[in-house]
C-alpha cells in the first residue's frame, strides 16, 4: 500500500435544475492508496453514484463539478480538456456499472465491445493481437473462450457482469470504480464475482472504489469504509474499526439495521424518517432530524470533518468538542 494514487479534495458536484442547484456531492474529501479497496456506503439519494460519475467525469449534460479537486497520481482531473480526459479515461481508471443488463450494446458481439476499448487507446494494435488480449481477459474472469463472439442477450446476468469487469480491466488501469456491481445479481453469483474481484485485485494490485447500499457486504471486503449521507461523508476509516465501534450515530443506526445470520437475535431499531431534500439542504448537520443523539448545536452549525483516531475521521458534534459537552 505504498503511494496514494487518488486524492479527492473538497469536491462539490451536482445538477443544475430549473428549481436550482442540487448539490449531490457536497465538500467530499478522501484519498486512496494503490491496491486499496474503499467501500462507499449510503442509502438512495446520498450522492454516491454522482461521486463516481464526477471522478470519471461522466456527468450528464446538466451535471457539473462546482469546486474541489480530483488529483489522480498528481494530475488534477477537473481542469483537463475533453480530449485529455478521453485518452486518460479507461487507460488509467475504468468503471463497472450497476445494471449489467444494459451496460452492453445488445446489437454488438462481446468481442467487438472488448476490442474497441483497446483500439481506442492503442491505435496501432493489430486485430489478431487485440483478439488475443480479449481472450485472455475472458479467461481471467472465468468465461469460456467460445463465448467471445456471443451477443449480450445470450449471457446470464452474472456472465454479463464478468464481461464488464473484463472490459474494465483490459487496459489494466490503476483504479476501477464499481457502482453497485452486484446489486441486481443473486447472492451466490454475487459471491462468485466478489471473490473473483478480490483475486484480481491482489494479482494486478489496482485499487477499487466499491459503491453500494449493502453495508454488510462492504464491511467484509473493504479496507477503508466511507459512509455517505445527503452528499457528505459522515464517517471514514478502517472497515473493521467502524463496524466494531461506529462513531457517527447514522453509521451506528446503519450497523443496527442488519439482522445477523449467526449469533443471537435481538430486536433491531433501524432509523426512522427519511433523508433531507437536496434542493434546500438543512443548515446544520443533515442527519439532525433523524439522529437520536442530537443536540441543538447540531441544528445550527455543520460539524467539521475531524480526525479522531489515526485515519479515522468523523463529522459529528459529539466528537468535535461541541460547546455543551465533552
Amino acid at each position, binding site marked *: 500500500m505504498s503511494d496514494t494514487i487518488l486524492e479527492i479534495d473538497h469536491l462539490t458536484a451536482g445538477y443544475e435544475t430549473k428549481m436550482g442547484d442540487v448539490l449531490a456531492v457536497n465538500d467530499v474529501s478522501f484519498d486512496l492508496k494503490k491496491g486499496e479497496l474503499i467501500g462507499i456506503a449510503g442509502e438512495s439519494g446520498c450522492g454516491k453514484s454522482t461521486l463516481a460519475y464526477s471522478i470519471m467525469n*461522466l456527468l450528464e449534460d446538466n451535471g457539473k463539478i462546482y469546486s474541489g479537486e480530483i488529483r489522480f497520481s498528481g494530475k488534477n482531473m477537473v481542469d483537463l480538456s475533453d480530449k485529455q480526459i478521453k485518452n486518460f479515461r479507461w487507460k488509467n481508471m475504468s468503471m463497472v456499472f450497476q445494471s449489467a443488463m444494459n451496460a452492453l*450494446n445488445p*446489437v454488438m458481439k462481446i468481442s467487438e465491445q472488448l476490442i474497441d476499448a483497446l483500439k481506442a487507446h492503442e491505435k496501432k494494435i493489430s486485430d489478431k493481437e487485440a483478439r488475443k488480449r480479449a481472450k485472455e481477459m475472458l479467461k481471467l474472469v472465468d468465461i469460456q473462450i467460445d463465448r467471445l463472439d456471443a451477443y449480450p442477450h445470450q449471457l446470464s446476468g452474472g456472465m454479463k457482469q464478468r464481461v464488464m469487469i473484463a472490459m474494465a480491466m483490459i487496459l489494466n488501469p490503476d483504479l476501477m470504480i464499481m457502482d453497485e456491481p452486484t446489486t441486481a445479481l443473486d447472492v451466490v453469483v454475487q459471491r462468485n464475482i466478489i471473490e473473483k474481484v478480490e483475486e484480481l485485485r491482489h494479482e494486478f494490485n489496482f485499487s477499487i472504489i466499491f459503491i453500494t447500499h449493502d453495508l454488510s457486504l462492504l464491511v467484509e471486503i473493504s479496507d477503508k469504509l466511507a459512509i455517505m449521507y445527503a452528499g457528505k461523508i459522515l464517517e471514514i476509516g478502517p472497515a473493521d474499526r467502524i463496524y466494531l465501534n461506529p462513531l457517527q450515530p447514522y453509521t451506528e443506526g446503519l450497523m443496527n439495521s442488519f439482522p445477523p445470520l449467526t449469533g443471537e437475535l435481538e430486536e433491531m431499531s433501524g432509523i426512522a424518517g427519511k433523508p433531507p431534500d437536496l434542493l434546500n439542504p438543512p443548515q446544520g448537520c443533515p442527519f439532525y432530524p433523524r439522529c437520536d443523539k442530537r443536540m441543538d448545536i447540531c441544528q445550527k452549525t455543520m460539524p467539521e470533518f475531524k480526525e479522531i483516531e489515526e485515519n479515522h475521521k468523523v463529522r459529528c458534534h459529539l466528537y468535535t468538542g461541541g460547546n455543551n459537552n465533552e
Partner: protein
Amino acid sequence: MKYFLRRILWLIFAIFVALTINFILPRLMPGDPATILIQRLEGLEPSAIEAVRTAFGLETDKNIVIQYWDYLVNLAHGDLGISISHYPTPVWDVLKKALPWTIGLMGLSTIFSFVIGTFIGIGIAWKRKSKISDAILGLFLFIRSFPYFWFGLILVYFLAFNNPFFPLGGAHSTRLMPADGWAYFKSVLYHGFLPGLTITISSMGYWILTIRNNMINVLAEDYITVAKAKGLSASRIRNLYAAKNAILPSISGFAMALGFVIGGSLLTEMVFSYPGVGFMLFQAVQQQDYPLLQAIFLFIILGVLFSNFIADIVIMLLDPRVRDGGSR
C-alpha cells in the same frame, strides 16, 4: 431458422387472405359491371353479352365457389382478365404501362426520403442542444402537416409555370421515345424531378421524427455511457452504439412504406399529370372497371406483404435478439 419458417407460413396465409378479399371486394360493389359495359357497347346481341360476362368471370348464374375457383385458376396462369374501361385490352397490358412509372417515381422518392430523413434525424438527435436541430425539427413538423398535393401545386406554380425550370407535367417530353436512349432517359429524370421532390420532402418528416425519438431513447441507455467512458470516438458511438440500435424500428417502417409504393401517389400524379398506377386506380373506380381494380389491389397487397416479409428478414439479420428467440 425456425423464425424464417414461421415468417414464410404467415406470408402464404396472408396472400391467400388477400386473394379472397380481392375476389369478394368488387362483388360487393353496387351495380352490375357487365350491364354498364354493355350499355357502353350498345347494339350487342345477347350472346355477346354472355361472352362478355364469361370473359370477366362474372357469370352470376354459376355459384360463387366455382367463380372463385375460376378466378384462382386464371390467376395461376397470370390471366388477370380483360379491362372494362380499356376494352378489349387485357388488364395486364394496361397495368404494364403504368407500373414502371409508379415504381420508379415512388420507389426512388421513398428511398431518398428514408435515407436523407434518417440521416438528418440522427444528426439532430446527436446535436440535440443546438438551435439548428430545433429549427429543422420545427420546419419538418410544419411541412409534415401540409397536404402534399398542395405542396406539389406550389412547386409547379413557382418552378414550372412562372419560370420554366421544370416541365409542367408528364413523364417525358412527347417528342422522345425510349429508343432515343440517353436523351429519353435524361428527359424522364427532368420530368420526374418535381413530383419526386414533392413526395420526398413531404414524407421525409416522418422518418426524421421516428429516428430522432428512437435515438434520444437509446442515448439515455447505459451502454452509451460505457462507450463514452471507453473513450471511443464520437462518430463510432453515434453510429455503432446509438444509430445501430435506434434504426431497427425505422427499417421495418421503411419496408412497410416500400410496400405502399405500388399504390402510387394519386394526388402527385394528378397535379403533375404523371401516368402512374394511382391515377389509373382512380379512373378504374370511377368507371367501375373491376378487373383492373382487382388487379391493382392485388399488386398493392402483394407488394405490401412481400415488403413486410423482407422487413422481417432484414430485422432478423440486424437484430441478434430476434434471430434467437422469436419476434421481439
